[in-house]
Each structure stands twice: as C-alpha cells, then as structure tokens.
C-alpha cells in the first residue's frame, strides 16, 4: 500500500521536491492562520528593540541640547516596504518630538515620499495643538530625485542644521557614507536600519536595526494588527526552521543523514 502511494506521489510530484513542497504548504497554512488571528483581534507582544529605545532617548537628549532631530526614510518611493517602515518611524518621532517642542527635520529623494512626510509633519503639529508652528517646506526639504543630488543636499542640510540625532531608516544604497559622514561631523547620535546596505549604516550608526528589525520596529510603532500578525507568522516559520536544524544536527551527530536526505538538496 505504502509503495503504491509512493509511486502515485512520485508520478505527481517531481523527485526530490516533496519536502520543499510540503514546507511551502505548511508556510501557506501558518501565514493564513496568523493573518486570520490578527484580523480577529489577536495582538502579539514584540520584543524590545534597541534602536527604538535609542530613538526615544535621543529625542529627550535633543530637547536638552536644543538641537533638532533629523529623519530620513530612504531614497525609494512608497512602493518599497523599507521606506514604509521608515515612514512609520518618522511618524512616531515627529509626534513625540513635536509634543516636547523639538523640531523634526526630514528629507528624501522621492517626491511622493516628500509629500507624505509633509502631511505627517502638518498632522503632528496640529495634533500637538501647535498648528501655527507648521509651515510647508520649513521642516521638510527636497534636493532632487536623483540618488546623489539628494545625498549632497542632505549632507549640506545636516551641516547647516546640526541635528542632535540623525535617523536613517528605510531603503538606502551606496549614498549612505556621503550623508552619514556629515552626521558624524556635527556629532549627531545616529540610528539606522536598512536591508541592502546595512554594513554602511552600521559603520556610522551608534544604534542599528538589524535586518528585519526595521519591519518589527514599524509594526511595534504603528501597532497595526495585520503587520504584527505577519511578523508572528514569520516567527512561527523561523521557529520551525530552527526546529528542523536542531533535529537535523542532533541526528547528524548520531550519524544519521535522514533530514538532509529529506530536504532533497
């Protein structure tokens, strides 16, 4: 009976891909369950993130020093998940700093991102009961939509305004050194996070969001149930992979290659 089933499966599923297909199906199920629970109101706690705590502390220090905070949510448009995470951070920073009278400055290279930042700043001042302090273009600057014209403009903006804290969270690539070096010159505390050029951010930043921590930070800030549920679903899969690794390594230590064979590589 078993061999008959095996041969039937063998006729349908390609050789060596059975486990990968099973894992994919499990991932579909886990993702959907997490989404379903999130939609029904389940909220998961997110572990403390060093970068986020540093940002909150940094706002206070900027208030003490009488210097502004500068936030840059990356060089991409709104289609990038990293930029959206950066905007979540920016929204929270603007809200908190406006409440205690610290100006939040921002720049970006994409015009659609600039529009969103401008709206966020206006809302933050209105919510803080200080709408008279808001002026379009006063806190948000645009230096061109090209990578390096933005970088040159941002560096000049930093040198002129001397922010006490520089936050770069979003989508960045090779232009990071040109901007972050200016931050180092004015002695700003730097917090950064991106996926593709994290090494360059890490070189300059005092606190970093490592890898997908930027999405965790965005979810923690917005408390968006679906975002948190996605994070939780991915965590279940990460736990599953850690489980596969631990079982596989234990068996391998006893001389059994069964998990490796099952993985089909």
């Amino acid at each position, binding site marked *: 009976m078993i061999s008959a089933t095996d041969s039937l499966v063998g006729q349908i599923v390609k050789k060596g891909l059975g*486990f*990968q297909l099973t*894992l*994919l199906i499990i991932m579909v199920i886990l993702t959907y369950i997490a989404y379903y629970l999130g939609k029904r109101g389940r909220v*998961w*706690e*997110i*572990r403390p993130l*060093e970068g986020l705590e540093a940002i909150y502390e940094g706002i206070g220090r900027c208030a003490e020093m009488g210097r502004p905070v500068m936030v840059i949510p990356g060089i991409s448009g709104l289609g990038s998940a990293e930029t959206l995470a950066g905007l979540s951070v920016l929204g929270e920073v603007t809200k908190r700093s406006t409440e205690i009278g610290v100006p939040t400055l921002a720049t970006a290279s994409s015009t659609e991102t600039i529009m969103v930042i401008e709206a966020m700043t206006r809302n933050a001042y209105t919510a803080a009961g200080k709408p008279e302090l808001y002026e379009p273009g006063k806190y948000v600057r645009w230096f061109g939509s*090209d990578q*390096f*014209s933005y970088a*040159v*403009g941002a560096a*000049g903006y930093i040198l002129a305004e001397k922010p006490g804290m520089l936050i770069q969270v979003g989508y960045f690539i090779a232009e990071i050194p*040109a901007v972050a070096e200016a931050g180092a010159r004015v002695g700003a505390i730097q917090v950064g996070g991106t996926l593709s050029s*994290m*090494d*360059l951010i*890490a*070189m300059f930043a005092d606190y970093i969001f*490592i*890898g*997908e*921590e930027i999405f*965790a930070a965005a979810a923690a800030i917005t408390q968006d149930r679906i975002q*948190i549920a996605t*994070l*939780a679903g991915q*965590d279940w899969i*990460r*736990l599953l*992979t*850690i489980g*596969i*690794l*631990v079982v*596989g*390594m234990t068996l*391998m*230590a006893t001389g059994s290659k069964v*998990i*490796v064979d099952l*993985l*089909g*590589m």
Partner: protein
Amino acid sequence: MISTDPWVWLSALLTICSYTLLYGDNPLFRIAEQVFVSVAVAHSVVMGITTVNTRFGPLLTPAATPQLFITLILGLMSLFVVWRKYAWIASIPISIMIGVGTGLSMRAMMRTDLVGNLSTVIMETSRIFVGSPTDQLGYFIRVTFTLAGLVYLLFTVFIRGPVSKPVGYIRTFGKYVFLTYLGLQVGNDIIMFQGLVTSAVVRLFTTWLGI
C-alpha cells in the same frame, strides 16, 4: 604626453566635475549629474527601441503569431503606469509579471536560500569533529553563529521559565554575530570603493595627462 582623443578629454572633464562634490554642491557637479541621469535614461530608450525592433519585428512578417500580438498590446498597456488616471490599465500586464515573478521567487528562495542553507548547516555539524583544528573551529562557528543569528531575529516569541535566561544570552550573542559580520564586510568593501577611485585617478593622470 597629454591625450588628443576627444573622448578621453570628455571623460576626464566629467570625472573632475563629479569630484568637485568633495568640495561641496556646485554647478559643475550638477552638470555632471545631469549628464549621468540623462545618458542613463537615453540608454534605456535606445535599448528599448532596439529590443522592440528585435522582438516585435516578426509581426510584420508571415511568421507573426497571435501570442506576439497579444504581448505587444499588453506591453503597450504597461506604459499607462505613468498616468495616474489610467494606471489601472497597466495593472493587467503587471499582474502577469508579478504572478510569474512571485512564483519563480518562491520556488527558488525555497530551494536555494532556505532549504539549501538548512541542509548545509546540518551537514556542517558532521564536520565539526573532523579535519584540522582551524577547520573544526570554522565549522563550529558556522553552525553556532547561524543558530544564534536566527534566534536573534525572532520578534514575537518569548521563552519563559528556566530557559529564558540562556535564550536571552543566545539572543545577545546573536546581535554580536551580526555586528561581526557587518564589521568584516565593511573591511572587505574598502578594496572595492578604493579600486573605483584608482580607475578614476588612472583615467585622469595616465590616460588623459599621460603621466
């Protein structure tokens, strides 16, 4: 001897213009940047026209197929992405591209980046106790660092009870694993960026000025 090739002169002058960035924002850098952006966009147009000619040329011959005609329509529809009002027209060809791209990325990521790495980590466990001490240490580091890194990247999982402390230590260790990787990567990046400066310097002083 100084070069007499006009292309070399153009290249050298543009290099100088771009290096004025180190002095600060200035019109020379802006000109260089505009040339850069314009040529990049113009190149994509030239490539686009050439590729359209190559791919859709058969439409004017008896070898034309209905599929080719359909993809021409879909391709033209995709251009509507730039007009906000009619962007929805582009959603049809884009949905095909996203569908195929998503499927390809899922199967390839699953095989190579996920299962491939898991299989490799497990295999490496068997090599921790064989070979030279340097190799043994290397395999030990590979396995433990990967596991610690994975534990660090759990965000909503909280282990309570007696094992919570050890897991906390693993998580802290995971953070240092990433810092080690990032530090080593910056070190290796240096040779890349400085090599690009070298090529610019060689262009200016050897090719242009003939030193």
